[in-house]
C-alpha cells in the first residue's frame, strides 16, 4: 500500500510564486499524470515529490510519514535526459542500485550473490526489451532504449513511487507508443504508484488513471508572478473501461509504418513513382 497525501503545498522562488496551496490525495496504485503548460510548475511539483526541492510551506506524506528531505530509493525517477550512467553498460546500470545497498564501501558484489543479481538484472532488461543489449553502453543505444534502460534501473529497486519527468518527450512518435505500452504493462504488474509529468494531453489520457491539470487559477497581467499554480482539473479514469491502446508498431518496424502511410496517401501518390528502378549492376 502506498498512499501519497499532498497538503497545502506552496513553492516560491524569491518573488515568483510557482505552486500555491496544492492539495491532492493519491491512493495506492494510481497512475497519476500531471498536465500543464510550460512554466506552470509541474516539474517543480515532481521535484518536491523527489526531495530534489523543498516546499516553501505545506507537506507531502507517503503512507502517513513526511517525505525524507533527501532523494531515497523509495521513490525512483526517470528524467527526460541523463537518466542512465554513461560509463556503465546496460547491465552495470541495472545492477548498480542493489550493489550500493549490499556493499557500502566498494559498491560491488562478488561470487554467487553477484551472479544472482546479474540474472535478475538480465531478466529485467529482457522484460523491457533490452535482452540483446546487455553489454552495450548508453551511447550505443537509441533514445527509446536508453529510457527503457532507465526504467529497468529504477524498477530493480522496487520503489513505492515511480516518478517520470517527461520521460518520452524526446522520443519519436512510434517509439513513444511502444513506451506507453511498456510503462502501462510494468505499472500493472508492479504494485507501485506512478506520478508522471507531461505536456502531451493525448498521452495523459492514454496512460493515466488520474489526471491533474496544473495551471494558474488567476492571472494579473501587471504582476504575472503574483499568482501561483494550483490544480484546475482533477479527473479519474477507470483503466478497465478505457478504449484499447492504439495498435502500435514495433519500435524498429519502419517498413510497416511506411506501408501504412503510403496506403493512406491514396490518390496523392503519383503513378509510376512506385515502380522499382531497374536493377543496375555496378560496372567493373
Amino acid at each position, binding site marked *: 500500500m502506498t498512499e501519497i497525501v499532498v497538503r497545502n503545498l506552496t513553492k516560491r522562488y524569491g518573488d515568483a510564486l510557482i505552486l500555491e496551496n496544492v492539495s491532492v490525495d493519491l491512493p495506492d496504485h494510481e497512475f497519476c499524470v500531471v498536465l500543464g503548460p510550460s512554466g506552470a510548475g509541474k516539474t517543480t511539483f515532481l521535484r518536491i515529490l*523527489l526531495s*530534489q526541492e523543498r516546499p516553501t510551506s505545506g507537506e507531502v506524506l507517503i503512507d502517513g510519514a513526511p517525505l525524507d528531505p*533527501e*532523494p*531515497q*530509493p523509495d*521513490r*525512483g*525517477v526517470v*528524467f527526460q*535526459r*541523463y*537518466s*542512465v*550512467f*554513461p*560509463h*556503465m553498460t546496460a547491465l552495470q546500470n541495472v545492477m*548498480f*542500485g542493489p550493489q*550500493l*545497498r549490499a556493499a*557500502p*564501501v566498494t*559498491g560491488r558484489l562478488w561470487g554467487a550473490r553477484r551472479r544472482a543479481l546479474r540474472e535478475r538484472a538480465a531478466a529485467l532488461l529482457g522484460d523491457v526489451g533490452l535482452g540483446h543489449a546487455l553489454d552495450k*553502453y548508453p*551511447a*550505443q543505444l537509441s533514445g527509446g532504449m536508453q529510457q527503457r534502460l*532507465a526504467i529497468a*534501473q*529504477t524498477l530493480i*529497486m522496487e*520503489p513505492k513511487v515511480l516518478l517520470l519527468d517527461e520521460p518520452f518527450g524526446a522520443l519519436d512518435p512510434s517509439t513513444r507508443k511502444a513506451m506507453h505500452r511498456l510503462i502501462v504493462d510494468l505499472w500493472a504488474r508492479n504494485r507501485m504508484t506512478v506520478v508522471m509529468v507531461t505536456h502531451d494531453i493525448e498521452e495523459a489520457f492514454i496512460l493515466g488513471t488520474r489526471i491533474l491539470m496544473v495551471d494558474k487559477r488567476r492571472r494579473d497581467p501587471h504582476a504575472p508572478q503574483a499568482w501561483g499554480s494550483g490544480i484546475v482539473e482533477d479527473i479519474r479514469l477507470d483503466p478497465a473501461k478505457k478504449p484499447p491502446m492504439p495498435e502500435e508498431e514495433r519500435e524498429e518496424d519502419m517498413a510497416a509504418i511506411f506501408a501504412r502511410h503510403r496506403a493512406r496517401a491514396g490518390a496523392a501518390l503519383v503513378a509510376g513513382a512506385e515502380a522499382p528502378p531497374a536493377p543496375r549492376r555496378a560496372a567493373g
Partner: protein
Amino acid sequence: MKRAVNYRPDRATGAFLALLPFAFALVAYFLASEARLAANPADRLMPSFGAFADAIEQFAFTENRRTGEYLLWSDTAISLRRIAIGLGVSVLLCIVVGVPAGFLPVLSRLLGPFVAALSLIPPLAVLPILFIVFGLGELAKVALIVFGVAPFLIRDVALAVQQIPRELIVKAQTLGASTWQMMTLVVFPQVLPRLFDSLRLSLGATWLFLIAAEAIASEGGLGYRIFLVRRFLAMDVILPYVAWITLLAFLMDWGLARLSRRLARWRAIEKGEA
C-alpha cells in the same frame, strides 16, 4: 572547383602531408649547416649530422670514463624519475582534493578560491623558496613540478565534476548511493577521461619546470646536461638532447591517450573513436 574545406586527404596523402614539415626542417638545417661549415669548418652553431652521430655515440653508447655510466641513459632515468614522482603526486592530489572539491559544496567553497589563487602564482617565482625550504636535493625539483601542475589539474577536474548533469546525481541518490559511493562510482569514473586530457595538456609545463629546476641546481638529468654543455657551445650535444626530450614527451602524450581510451572505453565510444 571544390571549396577548400571539402578537400579531405586520404590516408597516404595525410601521412605524406604530416611528414612534409619535418622533412622540410631537416633539409633546411642540412643546407644551412653545409653552407656555414663550408665558410668556416670550425663553426659550432650548426654542426653536421656526422657531428651529431659522434655526439650520440659518445653520450648514449660509450661508458663515461669518470663515472662508468652511459650519460644519456642515466640523465634520462634521473629526469623521468622526477617527472614520474611529480606527476604521480599531482594526480593523486587531484583525485583526493579535486574530486571532493568539485562535488561537495562545502569543500568547493572552502578550497575553490584558495586553489585558484595557488594556480595563479608563477611556479618559477616560487623556485627559490622551494630551494631554500627543501634544499637542493630531489625534493625541491619534484615540488616545483607538483606546484606547477597540481593546482591546474585540481581546478580542471573540479570544474569537470561540476559539469556532470544534476540529474545523474539525483538518480544515484534514488538508487541509494551514499556520498562516498557517488564520488567513487559515479563522479570519479566520469571525470577520468578529463583528468587524462588535462594531464596531457600539462606535459609541456611539466617538462618546462623539470628543466628549469635541473638547470639551476642539479647533478644530473636531461636539463642539467643541456645547460652544462652550453658552456662549450656544444650544439652537437644540445640538439640531440632536445630532440630526445621531444620524443619522450611525445611518447608520454601518446601513452596517456591510449591509456585513457582503454580505461574509459565508454568515452571513446561516445566520441565515435571505438
